[in-house]
């Protein structure tokens, strides 16, 4: 915030200095009024920062996309597919951002394979998906944006399968906050399955990707509503270049979970001692640059913890996806005391704070499951084997043995498990009111497994304000011409709490919308 204030002060000086140069009339006006204040609302006058527009452009593209994750690649694919010259700029030396390392879970009411129907897992619809998403976000979500996600999820999934060669596992799971079995798992077990598919489609259609390219400014002449975004400034190696976007700039740069200062500024509770699942590049500067050229933001304080990260480092490795995918099939979360502490089908914020509220010294908690659940919950035997070798999964023939191995009281764990088995049979959970289903598997037959878990900072629900066309909206509610945003950088889709497996459909559905609309934008050559 300090720097932003400083920018404003600098700008004030700059505006008055420039005015002085214009001539005597302006000079006297400046003397009388004591200089102009920064006023983003004054057409033609306001300038957001002490920066001169570039005199020449080093590169020119139709559509410039910032970020190479799900949203950026989907946008690039659509923009290039519509005939635009599109470039994806990635500041990191590798592509894919958080997307390539995410858990690969994808919420969609259906897919071309219709696994939910084939496996008799009940009904679903885009509308039901929207209802769950709104409820899970405490109705802070912008409903029009939710519609784009739930309606775009299924066609986007099929698109990646058909055109990009993405593969999904033959199951769907019911994850926390969802009322239907709609979470699809990638064969790769991580988001790379989809980033690779999208990259393939984008490159096939002629989009280009440039790594090691850190955007350092968004060029816009002023904040007049008709004033478009012109391009961006980018640091590439030792050089600073200016890149012109004749049609549009698309922000697809993700969230700010790794920027401690920005995180604390919006949510002081998320202190430095929390781990973070994100790659180091998730630092949110594009949101600040967008704000500096007039963009509105919303709900920046809604930052999600992934409840089941690897406790030591906070990474979301393959075993860390199991606790998330397991509840629909009967996985049980227990504390170090061997007791349940939450309805496992609860949303992420509830599951995360149920652990944090156990108090100091409660880290880690455990997910308990058995062999029969593995494939159903989108897991694989190979993953379990590898996880055991690394000490991430603990395997035992009996619940007693498991308790001993993870050093929790055996009697307590046995009691917890047998009670939960009984709840499955009775279809009722009097302890935490979990909505029990017929497909849940009781923990009666081994081998049994445990995986340690603890919350880590994961996803920013807030961000730049967009409309259903992925156009960025300014602080006065006007569309900023030539500026789009998609994915985690944009806010309002998930409300106060994103349901697990909604991130990928959000990013890809909006990425496609942004890319399609950017390509349609009027060219300013």
């Amino acid at each position, binding site marked *: 915030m300090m720097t932003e204030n400083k920018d404003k002060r600098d700008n004030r000086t700059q505006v008055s200095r420039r005015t002085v140069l214009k001539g005597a009339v302006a000079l006297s006006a400046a003397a009388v009024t004591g200089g102009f204040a920064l006023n983003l609302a004054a057409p033609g006058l306001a300038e957001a920062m002490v920066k001169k527009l570039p005199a020449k452009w080093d590169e020119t593209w139709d559509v410039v996309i910032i970020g190479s994750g799900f949203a950026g690649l989907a946008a690039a694919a659509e923009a290039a597919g519509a005939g635009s010259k599109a470039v994806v700029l990635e500041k990191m*030396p*590798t*592509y*894919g951002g958080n997307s*390539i*390392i995410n858990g690969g879970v994808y919420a969609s009411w259906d897919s071309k394979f219709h696994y939910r129907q084939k496996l008799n897992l009940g009904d679903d619809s885009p509308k039901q998906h929207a209802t769950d998403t709104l409820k899970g976000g405490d109705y802070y979500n912008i409903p029009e944006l939710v519609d784009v996600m739930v309606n775009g999820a299924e066609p986007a999934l099929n698109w990646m399968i058909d055109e990009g060669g993405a593969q999904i596992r033959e199951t769907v799971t019911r994850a926390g906050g969802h009322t239907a079995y709609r979470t699809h798992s990638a064969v790769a077990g*991580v988001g*790379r399955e989809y980033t*690779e598919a999208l990259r393939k489609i984008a490159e096939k259609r002629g989009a280009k990707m440039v*790594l*090691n390219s850190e955007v350092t400014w968004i060029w816009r002449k002023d904040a007049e509503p008709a004033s478009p975004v012109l391009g961006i400034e980018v640091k*590439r*190696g*030792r*050089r600073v270049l200016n890149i012109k976007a004749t049609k549009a700039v698309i922000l697809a740069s993700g969230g700010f979970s790794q920027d401690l200062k920005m995180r604390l500024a919006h949510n002081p509770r998320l202190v430095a001692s929390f781990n973070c699942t994100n*790659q*180091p590049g998730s630092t949110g500067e594009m949101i600040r640059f967008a704000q500096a050229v007039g963009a509105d933001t919303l709900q920046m304080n809604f930052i999600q913890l992934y409840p089941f990260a690897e406790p*030591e*480092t906070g*990474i979301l490795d393959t075993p860390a996806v199991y606790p998330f995918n397991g509840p629909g099939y009967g996985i049980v979360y227990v504390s170090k005391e061997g007791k349940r502490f939450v309805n496992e089908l609860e949303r992420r914020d509830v599951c995360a704070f149920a652990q944090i509220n156990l108090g100091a010294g409660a880290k880690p908690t455990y997910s308990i499951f058995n062999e029969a659940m593995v494939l159903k919950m989108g897991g694989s035997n190979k993953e379990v084997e*590898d996880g055991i*070798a*690394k000490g991430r999964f603990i395997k035992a023939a009996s619940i007693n043995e498991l308790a001993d191995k993870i050093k929790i009281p055996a009697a307590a764990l046995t009691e917890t498990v047998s009670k939960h088995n009984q709840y499955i049979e009775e279809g009722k959970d009097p302890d935490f009111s979990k909505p029990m289903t017929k497909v849940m598997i009781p923990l009666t037959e081994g081998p049994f497994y445990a995986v340690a878990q603890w919350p880590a900072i994961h996803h920013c629900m807030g961000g730049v304000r967009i409309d259903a066309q992925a156009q960025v909206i300014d602080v006065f509610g006007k569309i900023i011409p030539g500026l789009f945003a998609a994915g985690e950088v944009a806010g309002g889709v998930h409300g106060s709490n994103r349901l697990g497996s909604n991130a990928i459909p959000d990013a890809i559905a909006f990425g496609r919308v942004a890319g399609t609309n950017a390509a349609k934008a009027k060219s300013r050559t």
Partner: protein
Amino acid sequence: MKKIVLLAVAVAIIALGYAVSDQDSVLAANPAKASAKAAKSSTPISCQTCHADFSSLIPENHPPVKGNELSACTACHAPELTGTIDKNAYSVRMHLAHLPPKGNVDCLVCHRWQEGKSFGLTGAKESWGAPNKEEMELMKEIFTGWAASVYMDNLHAKAGISCANCHGKELPTFDVTVENTRCLACHGPMEALVKKTEPPEFKDRNPHQSHLGDIACTVCHKAHSESKVYCLGCHQNFKMTIQGAGETKP
């Protein structure tokens, strides 16, 4: 042209002060003048332009050398203009001998440079590129690092590998990177590299077989700055080290 010559003279005179201290016994009376003369007259520069006693520079067991011009050297020590791997290349030997810590001679004592137009050897026609002032500064900086840094460039220098071996025939410009195929020409094939760094315990924690897909060698291995294990950005508990990480880092 006149300007360039003057610049060369000026730089060479400044360089002289340093050069003398190190190798005064073999230096001619006034190498700067000699170099300037060579530049002016387009006479190819030779070792004797600066070193009066040329023969004493050559190692004892070195075969006899005929002639006073550079071709006397380059006949055996290829000038490395093709970008192929030659560990005893002329460029490696000459640059290491004249850059710190062994020497401290300015580029323009031996090289001629017309800003943004050409760059080559004093007295020779061939130009290898057209570096501007910025690029010239960068080349100096990087050459100095290559000769004496704690990074991977110096590891290569010690092994007799110079610019062209990684960058190819053209003078490297600002935005260039080294493609994996260049690295693998010596360090490959990739399968061998993967095998070499396969952790005994967990095979999937192999830095050369990343879950991030086909990534550039330069993600971790930086020639002219600190090399870093990219994996550690997230996997903080992995025990991994890398060469060229600098003196202070493990």
